[in-house]
């Protein structure tokens, strides 16, 4: 493989900068001054360590793109500050921040050829002609579009446009690379392919990179850390394993991966679930009591075979074969709960809807139901996380 690091000029300590976002808020005004407008970013703080690849993950409209645009300087925050490489950049205009930005719909210059698109950032920096040509050449090689110099963006496929946009952003050797839903407009296969390429590229060049996505699988697959954002707030910052296994909030638990949202009650150190107040067993987490919400991932439900182990009595409602796994819907005293079982566990064969089973939760998280169960359910339903 070509020594990408040297080609791209990353890795030099002075250029490579971490990002700090501190207490940033941004409100978009409502129509004609009426109403309060939309609080797109609500006191968001997080850090992107130097050289890391970080995903801003959240549902559409959560404010993640706005945060990215604030880092780039395309939007000005109402309050809070952005630092790069230890320096405050909040007052610095976009074109002096030295960021590379890949737009969701690429924003390629329609009137310019591939070559002129890539060289733009170098031309406005008044690079010598010879160096520009050399640099464009390197980048065309990198994105495997040699021979496409004189094409116009309209003559390229979606994936090719995406690569040109990436090359254009990388051309001036940015200290920070920002990508706004970089694969959002592509079909699934190209998307996966490019995501893997981005990961490989980053491994090689180690420039500080932030990308926005609403696709949790994409975030888990390629990011070093994930910043989960909901309604303009940072819900959790952590590695993929951290946000998946130890969600800090109900939202994180329900947004990342599949989860059963179960209304529950804690009384005398015992957890009861559902309208039938089924006892689950001794609590591990004793910090909460009263009305709570238990979040259980489908793969964290396990069948109990021997009678010695305590388990929850339930009925199998439906069983579906999914190739590598079985998806099952259980009825826990009137509560519908999903369970996923690896095919290799093997006990599923011969099971029929209507069978009586006993299960236990190997892991679950409890959250306070501040506004009551019904309100939470409505909120999650409106966001589309539960049916």
């Amino acid at each position, binding site marked *: 493989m070509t020594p990408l690091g040297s080609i791209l000029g990353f890795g030099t300590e002075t250029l490579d900068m971490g990002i700090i976002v501190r207490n940033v808020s941004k409100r978009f005004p409502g129509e004609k001054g009426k109403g309060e407008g939309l609080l797109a970013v609500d006191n968001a703080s997080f850090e992107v360590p130097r050289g890391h690849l970080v995903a801003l993950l959240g549902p559409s409209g959560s404010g993640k793109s706005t945060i990215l645009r604030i880092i*780039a*300087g*395309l939007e000005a925050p109402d309050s809070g500050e952005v630092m790069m490489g230890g320096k405050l950049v909040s007052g610095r*205009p*976009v*074109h*002096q*921040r*030295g*960021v*590379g*930005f890949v*737009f969701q*719909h690429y*924003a*390629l*210059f*329609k*009137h*310019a050829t591939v070559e002129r698109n890539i060289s*733009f*950032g170098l031309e*406005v*920096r008044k690079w010598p002609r010879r160096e520009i040509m050399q640099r464009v050449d390197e980048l065309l090689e990198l994105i495997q579009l040699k021979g496409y110099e004189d094409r116009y963006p*309209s003559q390229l496929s979606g994936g090719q446009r995406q690569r040109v946009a990436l090359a*254009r*952003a990388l*051309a*001036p050797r940015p200290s920070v690379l*920002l990508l706004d839903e970089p694969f959002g407009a592509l079909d699934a296969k190209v998307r996966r392919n490019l995501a893997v390429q981005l990961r490989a590229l980053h491994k090689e060049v180690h420039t500080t990179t932030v990308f926005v996505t609403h696709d949790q699988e994409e975030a888990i697959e390629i990011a070093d850390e994930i910043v989960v954002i909901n309604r303009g707030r940072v819900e959790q910052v952590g590695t993929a394993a951290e946000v998946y296994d130890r969600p800090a909030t109900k939202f994180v638990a329900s947004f990342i991966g599949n989860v059963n949202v179960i209304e529950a009650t804690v009384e005398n150190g015992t957890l009861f679930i559902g309208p039938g107040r089924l006892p689950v067993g001794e609590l591990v987490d004793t910090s909460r009591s009263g009305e709570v919400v238990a979040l259980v991932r489908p793969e964290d439900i396990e069948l109990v075979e021997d009678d010695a182990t305590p388990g929850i009595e339930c009925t199998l409602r439906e069983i579906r074969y999914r190739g590598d796994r079985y998806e099952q819907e259980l009825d826990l005293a009137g509560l519908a709960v999903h369970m996923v079982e690896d095919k290799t566990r093997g006990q599923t064969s011969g099971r029929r809807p209507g069978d009586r089973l006993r299960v236990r939760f190997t892991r679950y998280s409890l959250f306070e139901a501040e506004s009551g169960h019904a309100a939470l359910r409505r909120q999650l339903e409106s966001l589309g996380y539960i049916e």
Partner: protein
Amino acid sequence: MRDPGRDVCGGAFAFPVLGDPAPGAPAPGGRAFLRSRGSGGAEKFLIGIVLVWFAVLVLFPLGAMVRGVIDAGFAESLRSLASPIAQHAFWLTLGITVISVVVNTFFGVILALVLARQKFAGKLLLNGVVDLPFSLSPVVAGFMFIILFGPNGWLGKWFEAGGIRVIFALPGMILATIFVTVPFVTREVVPVLQESGTEQEDAARTLGANGWQTFWRITIPSIRWGLGYGVCLTAARALGEFGAVLIVSGSVIGRTQTATSYIHQEFVDFHYAGAYAASLVLAVASFLMLVAMELMRKRVADRME
């Protein structure tokens, strides 16, 4: 494309009513119910009506004018075109046109940027007023400038004191022409700006371009064909403007007489050869303008796809 309905600030006039709305679109004759049933007779009848109407209204008069020039004789026509009076009139018209185009291109682009990209109180009013010159009689336009810049006018007093004549002089004629051509550039550029959005400009900024570089390297190239179309409309209108300029100029022969008022004068004086020849020159000029517009409009349509 040019869909006035979709254009939130296309102005009351949604002006781009000109131009074949779909250049390069497949020829008609699809499966539309209203044409697919063997309607040969009715179809031919309707086509016939349209062709006859078009011939009577447009082609015959054009032909008659060419005939008129031929009848008057080429030598005679050329002689009258070469006369100092005619020469002066044409050069004056050209000068006024160039100035009007420059001024209205400059301010038209600014207006378009403001109308397409900004939100502010009073935008609806500004948007409406921009279209007014199109719906107002040019004679009334000229008359307004006489009142404003006449000897007793609000501004006329000042200019008079400074020794500058506006009315019955070149400045007034330029102002009147600028007035009647205000809407064209703006109305052509606004939809293109709205269509192309701000993403490309944002991209240029992140790549290190400052405001001017972004404007010249990104904004202008993306609106260039729409702008060119608007410039052609402005030029065509300025070349042919008659009422507004006539009334502020007083049409002093050899001094403030433009090409159109020269034609009028020659016609009134029964010098038909001069009138016909000058008319043909202007008609050819506007025809060329139309061809240029046709070419640019195709580029606009391509860009908007």
